[in-house]
């Protein structure tokens, strides 16, 4: 079910994880929370993502998509699997997927 559009990402190009489809492999290039999410401060969202080990350089892979609207998504972050909504995953900028797939840790 992987989207060819996101699969053929070029190196160094970044995209929000929130737009990626199941099967996507990549590496986190930045955590950039666009703004407060429905009352939760951007800073809080950022800290929560960090607490799950989602930091710059971590490898990510989308394992599953939820049954309604492909949301939420289950993301493997290095060794851990984290479920999160696409809304929050928009803050996770990912790229460089080829290299990440090779050295996935």
């Amino acid at each position, binding site marked *: 079910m992987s989207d060819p559009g996101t699969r053929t990402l070029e190196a160094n190009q970044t995209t929000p994880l929130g737009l990626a489809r199941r099967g996507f492999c990549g590496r986190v290039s930045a955590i950039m929370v666009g703004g407060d*999410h*429905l*009352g*939760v401060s951007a*800073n809080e*969202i*950022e*800290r*929560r*993502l*960090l*607490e*799950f*080990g989602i*930091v*710059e*350089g971590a490898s990510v892979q989308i*394992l*599953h*998509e*939820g*049954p*309604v*609207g*492909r*949301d*939420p998504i*289950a993301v*493997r972050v*290095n*060794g*851990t*699997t*984290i*479920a*999160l*909504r696409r*809304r*929050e995953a928009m803050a996770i900028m990912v790229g460089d997927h080829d290299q990440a797939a090779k050295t996935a*840790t």
Partner: protein
Amino acid sequence: MTAIEVNDWRIALVGTPNCGKTALFNALTGSRQKVANYAGVTVERKSGVLRTASGHRVDLIDLPGTYSLRGRSPDEDITRDVILGKLASESPPDFLLCVADATNLRVALRLVIELKRVHRPMLLVLNMIDIARRRGVDIDLDKLSAELGVPVVTSTAVRRGGIDDLLGRIDEIAGKPTAEIIASDWTVPAASDLRAAQREADRVIRAAVSEPAKPDTWTTRVDAVLLHPVWGMVALLLLLFVMFQAVFAWAEPAMELISQGFDALGAFSAAMLPDGLLQSFIQNGVISGVGSVIVFLPQILILFLFILLLEDLGYMARAAFLMDRIMGGAGLHGRAFIPLLSSFACAIPGIMATRVIDNKRDRLTTIMVAPLMTCSARIPVYTLIIAAFVPNQPVLGVLGLQGLVMFGLYALGIFSALAVSFVANRFFWRDSATPPFMLELPDYKLPQLRSVLMNLYQRAMAFLKRAGTTIFSMMVLIWFLASFPRPPEGATEPAIDFSLAAMIGRWIEPVLAPIGFNWQISVALIPGMAAREVAVASLGTVYAIEGGNEAAEQVGQMLAGQWSFATALAFLAWYVFAPQCASTLAVIKRETGGWRWVLITFFYMLSMAYLAAFVTYRVALALGWG
């Protein structure tokens, strides 16, 4: 305990969720544990006692799992407050036992790095080391310890492996005279601190762990089905179906046995005691009253067994994942699925389980609708009325009409819960924050029989204690109300017509008459406030069926002769919504810290109950079922 009483150590177990902390706690303390609540909040406080080789008595405290000491939910607040020694009622722990899942070190080590700032003696336990080794993880313990600056031991909590070693190390470290006590310099970590700590953790892992964990192939394979957009939902529904089937079908023989046991006990007491007030009190008030409630123990245990197994397996997080968007449509958080599922057993553990929801608004909505889920205490009431009034005829060949009505009542409860939370979201919370849904999907693990049984035992004891106290006293009360004052000499009407119960019932009756309730129902609703299931026994007592009113069938036959079909339906509708359980209201008060939410819940449920019963009764009358 023993004569040689060396000074006690207070040791706190701390770690991320799902790291096997509780399994380690069970392995260390065995059955010598106590479950209570922290003063002022209902966060569960598990503590246990153990003794090290050197004879030290250790008070071990199991803290709620946390990713950081920041405290984002009441559970995590407690973990922080205990570790930092902020609780007025407790001294800070002498020692921190940090538990890390050896297959998932990244997040755990970041927490350890944060915990170092508290400056308490610490020992890191790499739990589930056997699984990690099997998955090819090679950890250099000395190096890990050196890089981290924290002593490290390994353990396999579920097999009690390494426990002696662990106890030895505790002796060694905690026994060292503390040169100086350094005050904690922990501060709330900013994003930059978290980043730095995670980088440091990743550096330590690169230095000490030669082969990182490959994904668990079992988990991957199982999730391919259970998290599949279609098959995952099918599996979830199937699972719920099996669960409720089990609650009704598997519990039957055990319930039969308990019921017969209490019948025999009642008959025995009747034979032993002379006729009169005392005999009536023991047989009708005490034995049959308490028996009519204890009979539901098997159903409650089966439901809890399922919930405990699913939790231990790691399925609950998956269910939350699958249900997040669906529940989100009704304004509920995906995490609310677990508390709401528990509420099918009983709203009390369900409401207590809402502590996993970190956002106040989502938590309050979940607490408010949890009592609408059909709890096991409603089962006897539904079973009784359905058996008495609904013919057991097949529908579409395979389904029974009785089962269908039962299913309808469950569905009505679920539907109303979703509707109420939807409305609450639209009108109450318009401006408040909707928090993110983020949760770890742990690897599947086989549940540990020992810990499941221990948990079930604790649940059973809690239930029996309730039956022995609250329910018992309510039964005594209803027996007293139904028996006094005694009828005058030569009265021809039934004795109960002269009783206090009749007076109270007739006094309430005008309010409840529009929904088709007579005075007997009105009076049975009062003890039903203490525990819903008591209504069955109360109706029995009020209708003065002598000898074994726990035999639901007898009460049922009696009711079938006394009530109209419309009244029976109205009674069922009432029970779907009525806020009829004082313990639930008490838990809401404790969990929300005040009367506000108790009153809101009580009145919205009462209004819905009255309205539903009224509409049901009127419609049934119009259909000619009066």
